[in-house]
């Protein structure tokens, strides 16, 4: 009976409480009214800062960061500024429309194509953002289209001079000396960071679109001759994203190494006074290069585009050749030689590079083409060369005069085509092997005498 009374008392109390709650619900604004109020509040917040908002936007964890300035108005327009010079500069200063939706909470939707949509297409970026909260003067959003590892965007009120952070001089000048194919894999380039007082060079490969980089190695000396003579190098192999902000390149993670009794730690570079100059990486030929003056703290530096690095990870492969489809061979205008190769080898399946490949008869060093016959059997057209030697990433070898052709009765055109096509890349006997920030298995073979290039996968 006591339990029953307790139950009755509990039910009665609950009914009384529920009844009160129900009365309160009736007084609440409708969902629509509450959304309108929340939306208006967010719009008011978005339009409030005098100089708009500043965002250090990282589209994806594998990419670097980009400074973006956004200024909203109450009419649904947003002005977006960035230092991304792609698409003929359309993203430097653009106006699109936005709206605030109510789905997974308040959502900021950028309705027309702009820099964020460009990031969406290229780097897994996003252009729909869910509002998270207010944090002091900042607005925090997270991406809507990322199902995992959602990007968090921190909108900070911009300061009056923040547009100076978007000087695109560095971005534009960095792209003036790109030797790694711009059409198919984006803009990648080698740079030599020279610490003047320490007489140390650091070699870096940059992905200028993704804003990622790989610090390859460091060496004592400035010129190739000095570095070769000093023969004092150290591998660094540090990968990091970076942010271009004003005159600075800021590395997401600092890198360090010890060389020649000196401990070096670098977290950012200040770059200015860009000049274009010419240098030679093949006798009688010059390349147009760019050089910044700069500083790390108080130390003077230069930062120059180059083809050279003090080392290379392009190494012998005893079990499998390096290879690529015929699309991967380019002329001096970055046009693929696919059609030219097909004139001699219409059924080409692959281009291959054998580097100390183990055969029963000994190591094979050869370069050439794999062609399929009518029964899809492979025929090899290879041209042998001597074991490669390296000075830094400069690879040298000479053709032996021997060919390895498995096809019965090759035509004279095929034999001559093998010589002519391989000479386009290796005729000078000296090439530069370039690496990439974003892929450790991809290499570019660059002939500085005729600017032909071949991409090879390990």
């Amino acid at each position: 009976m006591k339990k029953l009374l307790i139950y009755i008392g509990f039910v009665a109390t609950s009914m009384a409480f529920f009844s009160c709650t129900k009365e309160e619900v009736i007084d609440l604004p409708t969902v629509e009214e509450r959304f309108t109020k929340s939306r208006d509040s967010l719009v008011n917040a978005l339009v409030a800062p005098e100089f708009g908002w500043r965002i250090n936007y990282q589209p994806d964890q594998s990419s670097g960061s980009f400074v973006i300035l956004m200024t909203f108005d109450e009419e649904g327009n947003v002005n977006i500024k960035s230092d991304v010079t792609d698409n003929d500069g359309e993203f430097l200063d653009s106006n699109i429309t936005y709206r605030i939706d109510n789905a997974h909470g308040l959502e900021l939707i950028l309705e027309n194509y702009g820099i964020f949509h460009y990031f969406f297409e290229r780097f897994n970026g996003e252009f729909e953002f869910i509002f998270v909260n207010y944090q002091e003067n900042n607005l925090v959003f997270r991406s809507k289209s990322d199902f995992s590892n959602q990007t968090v965007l921190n909108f900070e009120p911009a300061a009056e001079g923040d547009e100076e952070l978007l000087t695109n001089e560095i971005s534009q000048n960095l792209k003036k000396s790109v030797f790694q194919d711009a059409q198919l894999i984006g803009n990648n380039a080698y740079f030599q960071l020279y610490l003047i007082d320490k007489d140390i060079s650091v070699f870096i490969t940059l992905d200028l679109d993704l804003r990622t980089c790989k610090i390859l190695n460091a060496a004592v000396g400035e010129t190739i001759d000095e570095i070769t003579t000093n023969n004092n190098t150290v591998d660094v192999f540090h990968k990091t994203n970076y942010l271009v902000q004003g005159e600075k390149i800021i590395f997401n993670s600092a890198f360090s190494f010890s060389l020649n009794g000196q401990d070096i730690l670098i977290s950012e570079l200040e770059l200015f006074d860009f000049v274009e100059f010419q240098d030679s990486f093949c006798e009688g030929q010059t390349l147009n290069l760019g050089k910044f003056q700069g500083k790390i703290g108080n130390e003077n530096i230069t930062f120059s585009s180059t083809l050279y690095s003090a080392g290379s990870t392009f190494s012998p492969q005893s079990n499998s050749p390096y290879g690529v489809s015929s699309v991967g061979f380019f002329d001096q205008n970055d046009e693929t030689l696919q059609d030219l190769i097909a004139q001699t080898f219409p059924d080409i399946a692959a281009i291959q590079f054998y580097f100390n490949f183990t055969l029963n008869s000994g190591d094979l060093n050869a370069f050439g083409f794999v062609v399929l016959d009518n029964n899809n059997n492979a025929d090899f057209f290879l041209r042998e060369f001597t074991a490669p030697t390296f000075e830094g990433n400069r690879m040298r070898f000479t053709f032996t005069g021997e060919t390895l052709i498995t096809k019965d009765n090759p035509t004279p055109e095929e034999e001559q085509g093998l010589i002519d096509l391989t000479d386009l890349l290796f005729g000078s006997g000296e090439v530069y092997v370039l690496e990439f920030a974003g892929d450790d298995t991809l290499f570019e073979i660059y002939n500085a005498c005729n600017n032909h290039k071949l991409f090879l996968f390990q």
Partner: protein
Amino acid sequence: MKILKNINIRSIAKINPTGWLLAVILLSGCYDSEILDVPVNEPDNLPNTPLDNYIQEEFIDKYDMAIRYRFVDNYVDPGKRVTPPRLENVRPMLDFIEEFWINPYLEIQNGETFFKDHVPPEIIFLGGLIFNSDGTVTLGTADAGARITFTNVNGLDPEDEEWVSRQLNVVYHEFAHTIHQRYKLPASFEKISPAGYTSAGSWFILSDGEALERGFVSPYATSSPNEDFAETVAFFLFDKNFYENYIILEENCTTVDCEDRNEGRKKINQKLNAIIDHYQKVVGISLEALRAAIQSRLG
């Protein structure tokens, strides 16, 4: 598989760069046609920009046809990737569809009435192509006569024949669906080339030539009688070489392939005649007059 174009992977999506040289992207044209779906409502509280006012006056007021150019994510299915159009491309795109889709109807007999009675209430503009998880690319869609979606508005280039052909193919194809949806297919249409239709989801293994030999203007036309109808209408309207490609028989055939192509052309001709008669009978529209009006604009 129909290969329409090799494209620069890094320009459209973030993919491990290792893949780009080894891969050949196969773009297969496809239309997600006739998916029953509720039209997406644009969010309220839209600003009245000059562009919005133009759309109101020239499209909504005249044809009761809304133009959606502001991105709404359920314009495409979840998991599909697409971007909105550039703002500056919207007005030229409006001019384009007005010139090559609406105006030809206005200048032929019964065309204006037909257009106003059958036009879908929603037109969606998308900036890029719709990339599907199976590697195909959706060129355009129509949903049960309620909506037509244009993709690749950001690639707008009226001087580019390929871009123009794709856009016109999409809109003529999708608009043709309204005919069989309201008035059924021409009598016995599906019996003209019954053996040529492909099993579900396999149309893309055919080449253009194989489709022709079966009596179809494209591989996609083999996917069903409804798609066959819409593709034949679309090709007839936009392809200036339609008769040379699909109707006129090759002379002096000496090979089996040539004879097969001619047999296919005879079937297409039979279908075309049935379609032309059907349009005239059910809506009073001369497809030949419409083709002439379109071709005079294409030059």
